[in-house]
C-alpha cells in the first residue's frame, strides 16, 4: 500500500438488513476522523459518488442467496486487496439461512403471489463458501467498536484485537450473576462468541447467540444443561436455529433435536 495515499474503502451489500453497514454511519464521533484517514470510495448507502477499484479494503455485508450474487462476489474479490465480511449474514448465512432447513419453493408461495417472478437459490450461504475471505467479523449486528478496531489494525498493519472467548467471560468480568444459575434461564452464553459485552444477561435475559459459535463450543453439554432446566427438544432446536443457524456447530446441534 502506498503510504502517501489514503487507502480506498468499499462497502458491498448482499442479502441483509443493512444494519452492519449502518454501524459505520453509527460511529458518530469517529466518522469524520475515519474519513480523514480512509477514502470512502464505494459505499452506496452513504454516497452516490463511486470511485472505481482496486480497493484496499472491502467490507462485505449479507449472504449469497441468488445466482447473480454468487457471480458478483467473485468480481468484488478481484477488485479487493483485503476483504472482510461483516455480520451474521456474511459470515454464516444469517437469519435467512433458515430457508436451508426448509423447501424454499414453499416459502416463495407463502410470501409471493407469483413465485415464478422470483429468482433465488435454495440456500443462503456465507461469503466464505464462495471466495477467500481475509477476515470475518461476527455479530448480528456487529459491534461498531470492533469494526473500528479491525480497520485501524489494517491501517497500521497489525493483527486486530478481537476476543474469541465466550460471552460467559464477559459476564464474569462485568460481575453479572449467571442467569442460568440464578434464575434458571436458558442461555447460549457458554457457546457464543464474545463481542456484545454480555448484553442480554446484563438485561436479565438469556443470550440468544447473535455473535455465533465461539471457537470449539461444547454445544452438546450446553444442550443437556438446557434439558435439565426443563427445555423441550423443540426449544433447544430453535435456540441453535436462530441468527447463526447455518454455522456448523449450531446447525449440527439443532439437527440433534429435530423431530
Amino acid at each position, binding site marked *: 500500500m502506498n503510504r502517501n495515499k489514503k487507502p480506498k474503502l468499499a462497502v458491498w*451489500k448482499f442479502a441483509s438488513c443493512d444494519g*452492519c453497514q449502518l*454501524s459505520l454511519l453509527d460511529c458518530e464521533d469517529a466518522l469524520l476522523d475515519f474519513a480523514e484517514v480512509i477514502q470512502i470510495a464505494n459505499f452506496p448507502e*452513504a454516497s452516490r459518488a463511486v470511485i472505481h477499484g482496486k480497493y484496499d479494503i472491502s467490507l462485505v455485508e449479507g449472504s449469497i*442467496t441468488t445466482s447473480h450474487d454468487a457471480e458478483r462476489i467473485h468480481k468484488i474479490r478481484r477488485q479487493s486487496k483485503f476483504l472482510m465480511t461483516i455480520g451474521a449474514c456474511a459470515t454464516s448465512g444469517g437469519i435467512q439461512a433458515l*430457508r436451508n432447513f426448509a423447501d424454499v419453493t*414453499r416459502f*416463495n408461495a407463502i410470501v*409471493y403471489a407469483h413465485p415464478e*417472478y422470483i429468482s433465488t437459490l435454495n440456500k443462503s450461504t456465507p461469503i466464505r463458501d464462495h471466495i477467500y475471505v481475509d477476515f470475518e467479523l461476527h455479530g448480528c449486528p456487529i459491534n461498531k467498536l470492533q469494526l473500528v478496531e479491525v480497520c485501524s489494525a489494517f491501517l497500521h498493519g497489525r493483527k486486530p484485537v478481537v476476543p474469541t472467548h465466550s460471552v460467559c467471560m464477559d459476564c464474569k468480568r462485568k460481575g453479572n450473576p449467571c442467569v442460568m444459575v440464578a434464575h434458571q434461564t436458558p442461555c447460549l452464553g457458554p457457546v457464543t462468541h464474545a463481542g456484545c459485552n454480555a448484553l442480554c444477561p446484563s438485561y436479565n435475559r438469556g443470550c440468544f447467540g447473535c455473535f455465533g459459535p465461539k471457537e470449539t463450543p461444547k454445544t452438546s453439554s450446553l444442550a443437556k444443561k438446557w434439558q435439565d432446566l426443563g427445555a423441550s427438544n423443540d426449544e433447544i432446536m430453535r435456540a441453535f436455529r436462530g441468527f447463526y443457524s447455518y454455522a456448523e456447530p449450531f446447525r449440527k446441534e439443532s439437527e440433534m433435536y429435530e423431530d
Partner: protein
Amino acid sequence: MKTNQTIKVEYLARVEGEGGLKIRIKDGKIADLKLNIFEPPRYFEGFLRGRQYSEAPDITARICGICPVAYQMSSIHAMEAVFGLKQSGYLRELRRLLYCGEWIESHILHAYLLHAPDFLGYPDAIQMAGDHPEVVKAGLKLKKTGNEIVNLLGGREIHPINSRVGGWYKIPPKKQFLRLLEELKWARDAAIDVVKFTSTLNFPDFERDYEFVALSHPDEYALNEGRLISSKGLDIAVDEYEDHFEEQHLRHSTALHSNHKGFGAYHVGPLARYTLNYDKLSPIAKQAAQDAGMGTTCNNPFKSIIVRAIETLWACDEAIRIIENFEMPEKPWVDYDINGGIGHAITEAPRGILYHRYRIDSSGYIRTAKIVPPTSQNLRTIELDLYEFVPPRLHKSKDELTWECEQAIRNYDPCISCSCHFLKLDIERD
C-alpha cells in the same frame, strides 16, 4: 435531453437496500417507468411459521437494521392483541420513549447524511462536511442522542434486545435516564436549528394531491396505538387493515406494491402524519413549523426533510417529557396467559405505518405471519411522483435529471431492505 432516451439509475445510492429506476422516454413522453427492486427475498413470513410468538420481536427486527424498533413494536403489539393485553402507565410511556429514540436516529440519519447532500449538491455528507463541518457535526451529535435512548432502553442501537411481549426484560435505574436529559435538551435546541436550516433549502415546485394514511390517536402524536385514518375519509380499526388494503406482486420487484382498494396509491410517513396529526404536535414543534413557514399540511414530498426535522424536534420534546415524569414500574413486564388467536398491529415506523398480523395457536406457535412495511406502501406513490416530476424537466441534462429523480425517490427515505432492498435508476430513451 433528447426526446427519445432512457434514464437509468443502476443502483440508487443513499437509500437502505438495493433498487434501481428505469424510465423510457418516447417522443418527449414517459413510455415506461419502473422502480426496480432487486433486493433478494429473505422470506421472513415463511420461516416465522413454527417459531414461538416470543421470538417474533427479535427475528422481525432483522428485517431492517435502520428501524428495528418499529418491527419489535409492531410484532409485540400484535402478540399482545392476541393475548388481550393492553399496556398502560409508565410501561407504555417507555415504549414511546424507545420509539422517539429511533425516530431521532433515523430521521437525522436521513435528513443529514442521506437527503441534505442532494439539496446542497454534494454526493455525500462526508464531502458536505468539508464545506459545512459544523452542520454535519451537529447532525451526527443529534443522531447520537437518539441512539443513546435506544442504547439505554434497548441495550444497543441496532437490533436492541430489551423489549418483550408484556413489557421489558429490565428497566434501567432512574438516574441513567436522568443522565440523558441534559443531552436531550441540547438536542431539542439543536433540532429547532435543523428545522430552520432545512427550511432554507431550495425546493422544487412540486405538489400532488395524495391520499395520506397514518395512525391517529385522540390524545397524542400517534406511535404505537390509534385508528388508521386517511385524508380521504378512511377511519378504521387496525384489524380492518386488510379489508381496505391489498398487496400486488409485480414482475420488476421483489417488494410487493400496496394499494388502497377503490382508491389506489397512497402515501405513508412523515408528510402523512404531519398533515393528519398536526394538532397533536407539541407547542414547541408547532412554533418551529410556523417559524419555518410551514402550514398545517404539506403536499410537497421534497419538503419531507423539513417535516422530518419537525418530527425530530417533537420526538426530543416528547422524550424529555417522558423522562421528566419518570416513575419506576413495579415490575418490568405484566403477566399474561397464552391463548390462540389472531392479532394485528400497526405502529408508526420512521418511514410510515408498519402492519403485522399473526395467527398463533394455543401453544404459542406462530401459524401464519403477514408483514407490510412502509416502503412497499409508498412504492407506487414514488412511481406516480416520477410520472409527474419528469416530463416538465426533460430539457435538463441527463445527469442533472438523473440526480433529481434519485432525490425524488429519496424523499421517501425508502428502506428497501424492509420492503425487500436497494434502488437502481435506469432511464431509457428510444
